[in-house]
């Protein structure tokens, strides 16, 4: 970690090197460690220190981007020069107006010293607890324990300087009991908040109950989706539907539906990068403060996220959801929430006459973006529910179903929510568990 003053100095130094009309620097500092275990022992254990700068220069209406993780004075100059040479090769972008002006950025405390200083011994200690508990039950433990500290800063020649340090700890485990597996994970800004014993118990219990799964027919089921599965639903909605670019390109079901009912009345979805109960990042990669954006309110379509480019196209203000330049994907919701309901999670199962309990989805992919039609598998704890009770484990099923339709058939939402951070891209999601009717399973593994 370089700290705010050193990062400020570095970004000013880079801005001073640039002779372009406008210049932006994105700084990312990473101190990340991850302890991986399988067969109830650590088999991979890594740490990484990196500092990366990404320079966007604007010459008139031409834009170039170069990045480097070499912070020597020569390299900084080379990176700025490369960005400018590239910009000069560019064609004019008539849509481009200017880099963002400085705006007040809320201060959100997201850095926990203890997480940043978490040692390999402490991670190994936690893994030992998981492995011992597993062995005691004749179960095999696998998983990963990551502790990460990041510094993110954006500075530009119009006076933007935004800096944010953040930490998170993420522990996940798959326990295997012969033919059964069980999953559990936990994410928090503070590594001390990870309750290793509870996590082990959750995954072991599920693995033991998953043994000797039986067959079940493909078809439509009422499903109890645990938070792990709901997390996947939000990831896809963010990607295919809740971005201004998807709407502008006619790829999102939100197009033309604002103010109309698109989901069950109980469903409210939003993004808030400044919330205390997420892995916060109060500004985007252009240095624009992140606004709270409501996507769906009591089932009614409300809005999508914008970056500067898509906002200009629609004549509105950026909501602070840009990705790092040069970005071809458009804006993205990185801190999504789904509103909890009023049913305690343990009571969700009541009233399900016949259905499936789904712990987690796996290898999910878009089949049709407009319908949010997704295919994937269930994994690590799938059970048959009969007359309001789990009766037996079943073999994993393939589903091909519309996540949009699923959120139109929500029967109940848990009171509790759970926080997740994505392996790829670091987006965080806070979600409840759900009961959904008419979830379509299209095949079983023999």
């Amino acid at each position, binding site marked *: 970690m370089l700290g705010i003053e050193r990062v400020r100095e570095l970004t000013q130094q880079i801005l001073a090197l640039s002779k372009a009309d406008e210049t932006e620097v994105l700084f990312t500092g990473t101190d990340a460690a*991850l*302890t*991986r275990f*399988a*067969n*109830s022992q*650590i*088999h*991979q*254990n890594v*740490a*990484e*220190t*990196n500092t*990366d700068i990404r320079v966007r220069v604007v010459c008139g209406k031409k*834009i170039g*981007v*170069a*990045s*480097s*993780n*070499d912070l020597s004075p020569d390299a900084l100059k080379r990176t700025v020069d490369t*960005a400018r040479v*590239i*910009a000069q*090769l*560019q064609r004019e*972008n008539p849509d481009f107006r200017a880099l963002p002006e400085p705006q007040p950025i809320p201060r959100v405390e997201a850095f926990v010293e203890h997480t940043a200083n978490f*040692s*390999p011994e402490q*991670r*190994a200690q936690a893994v030992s607890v998981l492995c011992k508990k597993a062995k005691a039950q004749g179960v095999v433990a696998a*998983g*990963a324990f990551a502790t990460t500290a990041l510094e993110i800063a954006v500075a530009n020649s119009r006076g933007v300087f935004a800096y944010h340090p953040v930490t998170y700890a993420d522990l996940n*485990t*798959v326990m*295997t009991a012969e033919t059964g597996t069980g999953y559990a994970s936990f994410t928090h800004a503070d590594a001390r908040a990870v309750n290793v014993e509870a996590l082990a118990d959750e995954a072991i219990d599920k693995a033991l109950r998953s043994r000797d799964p039986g067959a079940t027919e493909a078809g439509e089921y009422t499903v109890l989706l645990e938070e792990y599965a709901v997390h996947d639903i939000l990831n896809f909605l963010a990607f295919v539907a809740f971005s201004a670019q998807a709407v502008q*390109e*006619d*790829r999102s079901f939100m197009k*033309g539906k604002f103010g109309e009912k698109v989901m069950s009345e109980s469903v409210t979805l939003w993004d808030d990068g400044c919330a205390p109960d997420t892995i916060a990042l109060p500004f985007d990669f252009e240095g624009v403060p992140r606004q709270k954006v409501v996507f769906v309110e009591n089932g009614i379509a409300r809005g999508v996220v914008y970056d500067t480019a898509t906002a200009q196209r629609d004549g509105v203000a950026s909501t602070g959801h840009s990705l790092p*330049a040069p970005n*071809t994907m458009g804006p993205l919701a990185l801190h999504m929430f789904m509103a909890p309901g009023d049913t305690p999670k343990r009571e969700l199962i009541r009233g399900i006459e016949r259905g499936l309990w789904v712990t987690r989805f*796996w*290898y*999910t*992919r878009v*089949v*049709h*973006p*407009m319908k949010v039609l997704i*295919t994937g*598998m269930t994994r690590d704890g799938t059970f048959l529910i009969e007359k309001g009770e789990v009766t037996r484990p079943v073999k*994993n099923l*393939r589903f*091909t179903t519309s996540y949009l339709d699923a959120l139109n058939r929500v029967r109940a939402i848990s009171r509790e929510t759970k926080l997740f951070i994505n*392996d790829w891209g670091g987006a965080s999601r806070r979600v409840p568990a759900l009961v959904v009717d008419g979830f379509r399973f*299209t*095949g079983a*593994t023999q």
Partner: protein
Amino acid sequence: MRDIANRALNIAQVRGATYADIRIVARDTQRIAVKNGRVEALEQDETQGLGVRVIANGAWGFAASSRLEMSEVERVVLQAIAIAKASALTKARDVDLGEPVVSKGAYQTAVKIDPFTVPMADKIALLLQADEEMRRVNGVKVTRGEMVFVRENKTLASTEGSFITQEIVESGCGIVALATDLRSGEVQVRSYPNSVGRHQQTRGYEFIVEQKLVENAPRVAEQAVALLTADPCPSDDAATLILDSSQLALQIHESCGHPIELDRVLGSEAAYAGTSFLTPDKLNNFRYGSEVVNIVADATVPGALGTFGYDDEGVPAQRTDIVKNGLFVGYLTSRETARQLGLGQSNGTMRADGWNRPPIIRMTNINLLPGTWSVDDLIADTDDGLWMETNRSWSIDDKRLNFQFGTEIAWEIKGGKKTRLLKNATYTGITPQFWGACDAVCNEQAWVVWGTPNCGKGQPPQIAHTGHGAAPARFRNVRVGVIK
């Protein structure tokens, strides 16, 4: 480089590591993306650093840093050793790498035209021209084009005496047309040469020229628009299906390439990517496919995306039989996993995604060897079936048994002829049943080594670039048309 390497290995040995290696890697990436007639992204990225892997107290540790300074080298080595000692707290047995590997040498991708010397303006012009050709077609909503060039220089040195330098160069490109119809909510896409952004090989700019993006652009756009009004793929539980070589490449990747990774098989990926149905008892003892199915792992194919000189453990690139006349005969191995199963020497598939990741078992080029059929003969020989082309969606379970793929485009085959155009084509199956029902593979003339530049695996996540040689092949009794 040699100084840094020697210093690192020296400190490691003095401080109690029984094995250590260091990789010093510098990677340059150039990316150009155009969209709707505009250059959307021009970007040049460089990343460099060192990664040190050690065994201490019989367990693994790895640490990496972007700072190539002597003081930092020392810190990183000590950190790796401390991590290894922490790993040892849970160990069941000591890591055993088997016989030492002592490789000395240099490898360089054979490049006719160095892509980094081709003016960026020329690359932009080519992409914009292809883009314009696509936009000329009525009904096209979004057009995209992309080129990516990579140059990676890496040095590997180990305490066993290996010292290797390699330069790997890659060139990749692709174009995409998207057509939409708001009234019906239909979104259709066509890509060329391959989907998911691009096709890529370890070759120079000559690869880009050969792809003829501009010449193919009108067809790509016309097909995207035609798909909007095409009939949907019919549902059938026992269809005859011919896959084009690019879709087949992904089928090989997902249903053969991943389950033969021996680290997966032995449980190392249980919590993340998953395990494998190809358990050790099945080696030399399991019918993976029909007699015509022959698959090799070959890191030596000139120009293929998974081709290199040495893997990141210093083991020379090799060709290994994986499936022989339908029988499952080989895994992708590392030194540690080959030793664990008593398979002799590693077959050299350990690769790291850059300086900041440890090597893990990755596909090299997993190739379905060509058969005897010409494409025309195969279609003529098919009375009632489907031709599916270019991947659109993919999904497979954690043991790599139950898969479902969708393709961008399909045609009905009736009476030995490609006839009706079909949209939203999907097929699904169980790996050994599917390959067991393969009754024809096309010949060398139709064989292409596709590049997959986006294979994700591991925690922390790593992306590998893999190759897959394939020619169109026919499968019987396949369930198709899974979408309502």
